[in-house]
Structure formats: C-alpha cells, structure tokens
C-alpha cells in the first residue's frame, strides 16, 4: 500500500522564494540533483515503449513546492517523463519502466502502489482543456464525490475554494450550474486546474497547458502558476522557452530521452553548462 504522506505538513523547512524574480538558489539547494529531500526523485529511470527507450536512465530530484519546467525538442521524452509521474503511460500497451521513480521516497512503480491514490496526489492538466460535459459545479465536485464526499455543503466549500485557487471564481460564481463547455478556452483550462485542485493534490503536472490558448489566457495561466507556487510541486512541459524562463525555478532539458541538463532556471538560461543546452535554447540546434 502506498503510504503517501502529506509533505506540506512535514517539509515546512524548505525555503520557498516569493517569486521567480528572486534568483532561485537557496543555500541548501545549490544543486538540483543529489542531496536534500526531493518530492519526486528519479534514479536511473527509463521508460520503454516496447523496445524503444523513450526516457533514458534519468536521475533527478524534483524539489517540493517549486516549479520545474521541462524543455526539449519534440520526441525528446519530456511528456513521457511527466506522464510517468502519475503513471499515465500505464495505459499504453508495451510501456514499461526500469530504475526507480520515487514519490516522497516511495516507488511510484512499486508492487503495491495504489494508482488511484497516486493520481489523487499527483494531478494532471493537459494541452487541450478537457472539461466534462457537465455543469461547472459538477466538474469540480466530480473528484471529491469519487473519493466519497457527498455532503452538499462540504462540496460547495470545495468547489468555491478550488475555483478561487484557480483564479476563476469571480468569472463563474454566478453560473455554477451552467455547462462548462460554454466557457472560453482559457477559462476551461483554469477550470481543469480547479478540478485537479479539488482533490487536494501535492503535485501538479502541466503538459503544455497553454499551447492551445491565446496570449491573454496564457498570461492568466502563467499568473496562476505563480499563485500556486509554494503550495504545490509543479512540473510544466512547454515548448515555449520564454514561458519556462518566466514561470519556473528550475529547468530540465531533455534530448533524445536523455536528461542533458537540470539547473536553476536563471542559470540555465543565462549560462548553461552543457553546449547542447546552449545550442538548443539559442536556436543553434542542427
């Protein structure tokens, strides 16, 4: 049985800068990999689709309550790595893993891991907003109901709290009974974030969450990431490098399944250590 503990109650000593403008390099976190408590830790972790090794022996620490961006060209394994964290790849025939991927020190791919409990703790938002064809209220209440919350008053509290956290409450509070599909794309995406937050996750996985949105809706999602930062461990896959540099504390660069570099974002975008990273982010990649 997966014994997932609530890190938000046990890791208060981890310093969290208020904004990404403060250069992220707390003294005890001078390196990203190795040492210190990690919320998610990969050790020689590989993901295979049949014989094809899509993620190759990745070792990395994902720090609690920080925003980690994952960048790299298409097909580099970044989404596969992200999806591996809440075992979304399990649905793909022939997909298997080697090495270990730990959540709070426990193996996500352990024999007794409860995937439902894992996905409650590790929520995910996808590229395309995917609200259920239900009312706004029912979209948010869906997860809590699934986990046994049926009290109407309690559900209302959860719905309001989640929508407020996702910075969409003011826009929808007077039409909670309306169909969620009537919202704009940007609103739908924030609704999906709210739906994820409703089951009180610890980790948010965002897979290109703004690639289908216009600049205004993108800005709202980026602002939302800043708001949620410090309360949740957030991982975002993005093709937009300016977005990665704007919203994240650390950045991972993947190429052909290999984690080439993982460093504080300010360092990676000003003075990357690996020439391959430099060539990619400056557009010199051949």
């Amino acid at each position: 049985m997966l014994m997932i503990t609530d890190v938000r109650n046990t890791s208060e000593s981890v310093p969290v800068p208020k904004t990404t403008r403060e250069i992220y390099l707390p003294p005890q976190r001078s390196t990203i990999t190795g040492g210190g408590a990690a919320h998610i830790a990969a050790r020689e972790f590989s993901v295979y689709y049949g014989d094809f090794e899509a993620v190759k022996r990745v070792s990395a620490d994902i720090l609690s309550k920080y925003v980690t961006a994952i960048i790299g060209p298409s097909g580099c394994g970044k989404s596969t790595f992200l999806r591996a964290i809440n075992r979304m790849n399990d649905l793909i025939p022939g997909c298997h893993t080697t090495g270990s991927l730990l959540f709070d020190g426990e193996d996500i791919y352990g024999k007794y891991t409860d995937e439902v409990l894992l996905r409650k703790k590790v929520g995910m938002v996808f590229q395309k907003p995917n609200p259920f064809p239900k009312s706004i209220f029912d979209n948010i209440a869906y997860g809590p109901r699934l986990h046994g919350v049926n009290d109407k008053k309690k559900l209302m509290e959860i719905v309001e709290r989640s929508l407020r956290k996702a910075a969409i409450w003011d826009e929808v509070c007077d039409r909670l009974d309306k169909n969620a599909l009537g919202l704009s794309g940007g609103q739908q995406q924030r609704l999906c974030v709210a739906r994820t937050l409703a089951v009180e996750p610890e980790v948010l996985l965002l897979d290109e969450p703004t690639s289908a949105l216009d600049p205004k809706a993108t800005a709202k999602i980026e602002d939302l990431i800043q708001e949620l930062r410090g309360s949740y461990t957030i991982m975002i896959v993005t093709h937009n490098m300016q977005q990665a540099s704007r919203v994240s504390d650390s950045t991972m660069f993947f190429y052909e399944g290999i984690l080439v570099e993982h460093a504080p974002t300010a360092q990676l975008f000003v003075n990357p250590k690996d020439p391959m990273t430099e060539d990619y982010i400056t557009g010199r990649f051949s």
Partner: protein
Amino acid sequence: MSSRPVHELIKELSQVLVQLSDKVVENLFNALHAVKHQDEHGARQIRIIDHEIDVAEVNLEERCLAFLALQQPVARDLRTIVTIIKINDDLERIGDLAVHIIDRMPEISPEMLDSFAFEDMGAHAAEMVKKSIEAFISKDRLLADQVCALDEEIDVMHRSVFKKVTTLMKNQDSDVDQLIAALSISRYIERMADHASRIAYEVIYLVTGEIVRHKGVLYEKLIESIKE
C-alpha cells in the same frame, strides 16, 4: 550548421562595436598629438569625431535594446548583447576623456607636456583598449586577463606623475595651473585604462558567465582592519 538571421544580427552588432572602438582609439591618439603640437584644427576635428562617437553609441544601444525586446536572447546570445551594451558605454566614456584632454590644451605648454611621458602612457592605455576589443572578438579569456594586469602599470605611471606634480608644486615659482592640467591629463589616461579593464571584465563574463568585478580581497581586508 548554417547561421540564422538572428545570429547574423549579433555578428553585425559586434562589428559595429569594433568599428566604434577603432574610432575611439584613433581619437585618443589624435588628442595626445594635438595637445603636444597645440593643434587647434586637430582639436576641432577631435570634437567632431567625438560627436560622431556619441551618435554611434546611442544608435548601437538602441539596436541592442530592440534586439533584447524582439529576440529575447538567452545564454551566450544574451551575454553577448549585454556585453556589447556595456562595452559600448565604456568606449563612449573613453571618447569623452579624449575630449577632456583637448580641453586642457590651452592650460598647458608643449614644454610642460614634454616633461611628462603622456604619449607613452596614452599609447599604453590605447593598447589596453585594443587588446580588450581583440579579446572580445576572439572571446579570449587569457587576453582579457592580460589587459586587467596591464592596468597596474598605468596606475604606477599615474602615481609617478602625481608625485612629480606635487614635488614641483612645492617650488615657489611653479606654474600651478599647468601642473594641475598635467595631473588632469594623467588622470584622464588612467581613467581610460580603467575603462579598458572594465571591457576586459565584460569579456570574461561573456566567455565564462561569471562576473569577476569586485572579486578582490579588499572587502575582507577592510573588515580585518576594523577588527584590528
């Protein structure tokens, strides 16, 4: 790998900076020559060239700022543009200092100038500027280090001028105005060398990503001296 237009633009901005540095160094030599020969016409030319340097400096800065806003460079591209902006500023200041030398021309006689080794000192400072720009072109960390080391030689020369001037001033019949002008010229050349050192520091940042300015032990020494 074929070069993208954005990288061609960075090369072009670098070339504009190098052209500006050539102009600045030439004006520095001309300023020393004009003062030595009391060349009024040459002095006017130097002021005209300095105005051109000022215009070019503003133009290059505007182009770099537009590049930052429009291209949002990162990594070495970012460091290159930031370095160009900073070197551009230093070159403009060196240009101003050449004009300051010209400003002292009416206050100092050729005989008084001959008693100081300003041409040597100026040539030394100009060499530092040239080498720092060479280090920028070739991204040569070692050459940049050499430029920083050369600054000490100029400082020694300036201290020697200072000592000589203060000694001469103690004479009853000394021409204080001329001596102050001489000291000022020495100071201007010493400041030029400082700017060349700053350019070299910027090159070190460009190459390594590390800001090495103010990394001496002075602060620790001051703290120690307070304790003592």
